[in-house]
C-alpha cells in the first residue's frame, strides 16, 4: 500500500535522533491519536542547518518525519514555514488516502519547532503569540480522515 519511497524512508529513516543544543524544538500530536512527532532544528543566520526527529507512529508518520527533515535543511525559516503536508506527501510519491492525516504531523512539527525558535529569540509576532499554531490532534486528524474503510477479522 505504501510507495517504495515511503518504505525507504520508513526502513532507513534519515535524521533520527535529538539535537542537544537545538535552537527550536517542537512536538505535535499525542499518544491518544496514535502519532507523535518531535522535531529538533539547528538554525544559523535564519537558515536551518540541521534537523532531527523522533516519532511514535505508523509507517506514514515515520516516513513523513524523515522526509520533512530532509526538506527543511538548507531552507530559511520563512521558506520552511511554507512546506505543506501535501508537499511532503508528494515528495514521498504519495500516501494512501487513509494515511494523509499522518502526514499533517510533519507540517505541524516544523511550525512548532520554528515557533519555539522564534519565541526563544523574541521573533514572535503578536498573532503568533496567541498560540494559533498549536493545533491539536483532533484538528489535525479530522479534516483528512474521510476514509472509513476498515479491515478486520
Amino acid at each position, binding site marked *: 500500500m505504501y510507495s517504495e519511497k515511503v*518504505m525507504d524512508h*520508513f*526502513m532507513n*529513516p534519515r535524521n*533520527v535522533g*535529538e539535537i542537544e543544543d537545538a535552537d527550536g524544538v517542537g*512536538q505535535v500530536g499525542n*499518544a*491518544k*491519536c*496514535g*502519532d*507523535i*512527532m*518531535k522535531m529538533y532544528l539547528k538554525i544559523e543566520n535564519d537558515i536551518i542547518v540541521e534537523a532531527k526527529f*523522533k*516519532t*511514535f*507512529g*505508523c*509507517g*506514514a*508518520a*515515520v516516513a513523513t518525519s524523515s522526509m520533512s527533515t530532509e526538506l527543511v535543511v538548507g531552507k530559511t525559516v520563512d521558506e520552511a514555514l511554507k512546506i505543506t503536508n501535501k508537499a511532503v506527501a508528494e515528495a514521498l510519491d504519495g500516501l494512501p488516502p*487513509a*494515511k494523509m*492525516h*499522518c502526514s499533517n504531523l510533519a507540517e505541524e512539527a516544523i511550525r512548532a519547532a520554528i515557533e519555539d525558535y522564534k519565541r526563544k529569540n523574541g521573533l514572535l509576532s503578536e498573532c503568533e503569540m496567541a498560540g494559533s499554531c498549536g493545533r491539536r490532534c483532533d484538528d489535525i*486528524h*479530522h479534516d483528512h*480522515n474521510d*476514509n*472509513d*474503510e*476498515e*479491515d*478486520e*477479522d
Partner: protein
Amino acid sequence: MGEKLIYLDHSATTYTKPEVVEAMLPYFTQNYGNASSIYSIGRESKKAIEEAREKVAASIGAQAKEIFFTGSGTEADNWAIKGVAYANKAKGNHIITTNFEHHAVLHTCQYLENDGFEVTYLPVDENGLITPQQVAEAIKPNTILITIMFANNEIGTIQPIAEIGKIAREKGIYFHTDAVQAIGNVQVNVKDMNIDLLSLSGHKFYGPKGAGALYVRKGVKLISYMHGGAQERGRRASTENVPSIVGLGKAIELATANIDEYNKKLIALRDRTIDEVMKKIPFVKLNGHREHRLPGNANFSFQFIEGESLLLLLDMKGIAASSGSACTSGSLDPSHVLLAIGLPHEIAHGSLRLTFGEENTQEDVDKLLEALPTIVERLREMSPLYESVKRGNQNV
C-alpha cells in the same frame, strides 16, 4: 526475499488445506449441477450438500436439519440476530450482548437499535471476560436474545458459554454465539452448552472463504433473511455454492477430528511465545486472560511504540501478524476490543496479535523471538515517548 513466510495471522484467515481443495474441485467442472435439478448431476450436488450438512452438524453436536449454509460468518451473525429480533418482536425488543463483539455482531445490534430495539452491551473485565451473573442481571421481561461470542478474535478470550447457555435456557431466552474463532480450536457442543444459534465460518479452520453456516436449534423462531427460491428449506434463498459447502464440510471434519492434539501443539507454541516475550522485552503487557484464551492466540501491547510500524518491520523479516492500532484499522481509534478491556489509547496503539496454526513450528517461534526484541527496541529508540523513560521518568 526467498525465505519461508512465517504466517502468524491464523485468526485473520487460514490457507485452504489441499485435501479440502481436492474435495471441492469436482463440483466446479464435473458435478456442477444445480442441486434443485432432477437429473443426475443435480442429484449429485444435492447429495454432496447433505453430506456436508451432516459433517457440520456432527462436529458441533447438532442435527443435520438444524444447519443452514450461508455465504460467510458475517451473514450467519446478521441472520441470527436480525432473524430472532424480527421474528420475536411481539414478545419483546431487548437484546443482550457485550461491548467487544466482532463488528458483524456489534454493527448488527447498532442497526437494530436504530429500528426500535434496545441493546445492553455488557462491559467485559480487564481480561476480556464477562460473568454469567452479569448476563443474569441484565435480563429483563422484554429480553428476547442473548448474543455473546464464544472466543474473541483479537485477544482470544473464551467466555463461559455453557454457564451463559444454562441461564438463557432457564429463562426461555434465545442464546446465539458467534463461534467463528472457536470452531476447530475449542470443543463445541450446542446441546451440552444450551446454544440455540451458532455462527461459524470456513476460512478460519482451513476451509474456503465465503463459506459459513448458521446452526438454528429446532423450534427457534427466526425469520428468513434471504428471500427468493426455496433453497435451504426456504430459509436462505440462492443457488447453493456447492464447492464451498463441500469444502466447509471437509474442513470442519478435519478440524474437529484431531482437535485435542492440535490444541496441544498450539498451546506449546503460544505459551513459549508468551513466556519468552514477557521475559525478553520490558514494558510489555499480555492482553486477554492467561488461561481462558484460544490455544493459538498471543496478544501483547508494547509501550511507546505503534503497531503498524511493528507489523511493517516484522513483515521485512518474513513474519505476518496483525495489530489493533488505529493506523492499521484506517480509523482514528484503536480497536474497540482493546479499549473494552480498559487499555489507554497509547497502549492499545502498540498492540501485536500473533495467532498460530497448523503449519507453525517451534523454529518459527525461534525466529520470532529473535526478531521481535530488536524491532521493538529499534522503534523505541525512535520514539519520543521512550526518551523520558530512559531518563528515569516513567510517567508518560
